[in-house]
């Protein structure tokens, strides 16, 4: 027997219905609900804040224009994150074409406060640039944002099992890159 829909899901469906009917206030409420996760997904893929912001804005704009094609039974968040991750992956592809292998140098992660930056942050910043966009995405989605493997698969357009193995290999790669830091006394 299907589980009853919770209040949050029903409220979201109502917002989607109102947005489809032309309410910008309803769409703004959907933006408020989903922009943080959308930003996290995009930022994990593109790394730089500016590109992540572009991908999120492009994603929401595409979603707004495609609202008529959205099927109300599905999760708006999953649908939106799929659009945002596609926009982010597209940015990465275009950047790769432009800059060939210069990605690690070109996308240095800025520290908001240099005084706070410890060695872990420095090493992590370098290590994240060495992971692939998909590896970063699965780590951030699962370990930071709490996506299930199924949700990760739906967002990135890969089978759930692939999302699970990607996460395993991404964590292993990150551990290898931080190994000497962990082994230090």
């Amino acid at each position, binding site marked *: 027997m299907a589980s009853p829909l919770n209040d949050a899901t029903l409220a979201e469906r109502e917002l989607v219905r109102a947005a489809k009917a032309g309410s910008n206030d309803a769409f703004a409420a959907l933006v408020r609900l989903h922009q943080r996760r959308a930003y996290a997904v995009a*930022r994990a893929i593109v790394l730089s*804040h500016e590109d992540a*912001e572009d991908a999120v804005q492009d994603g929401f*704009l595409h979603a*707004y224009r495609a609202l008529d094609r959205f099927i109300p039974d599905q999760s708006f968040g999953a649908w939106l994150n799929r659009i945002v991750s596609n926009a982010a992956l597209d940015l990465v592809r275009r950047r790769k074409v432009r800059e060939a292998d210069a990605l690690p140098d070109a996308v240095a992660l800025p520290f908001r406060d240099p005084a706070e930056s410890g060695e872990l942050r420095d090493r992590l910043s370098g290590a*994240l640039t060495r992971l692939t966009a998909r590896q970063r995405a699965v780590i*951030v989605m699962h370990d*930071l944002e709490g996506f299930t493997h199924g949700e990760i698969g739906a967002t990135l357009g890969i089978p759930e099992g692939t999302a699970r*193995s990607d996460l395993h290999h991404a964590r292993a790669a990150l551990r290898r890159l931080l190994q000497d830091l962990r082994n230090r006394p």
Partner: protein
Amino acid sequence: MTDHRFASRDQLDAPVVDAIRDLLAPPGGEGYWSELESSIMARIGSSDLGWWGELTNWARPALVAAAVLIITATAAMLHWQQAVAELPYDNVVATGSPLPLPDELTVRPVAQGDREATLRFLFAY
């Protein structure tokens, strides 16, 4: 069926997760989210103009095409006017030989002298 080969026992350490979260957080703290929402809604508002918006999307390429067309047409017209202006000079200066005339208009100098002499002889009497 769940694939147990990649069980979640290999989770990252909490300090690593916290550091990633810190690294990938947007600048500006909580205030950033209202700014982002405003930016998104502003973009949607500017694109939400129906057929007029579509027209606006086409305006820039159309302006470029029109400018190229005008420049090309102007250049062609100037070139044509210059060619027309130079045509008489070309006919006079560039062609070294006189213009060809029909045979019936051609005056034979030798015959002309004979004819005049004959006419003078006839009118004299």
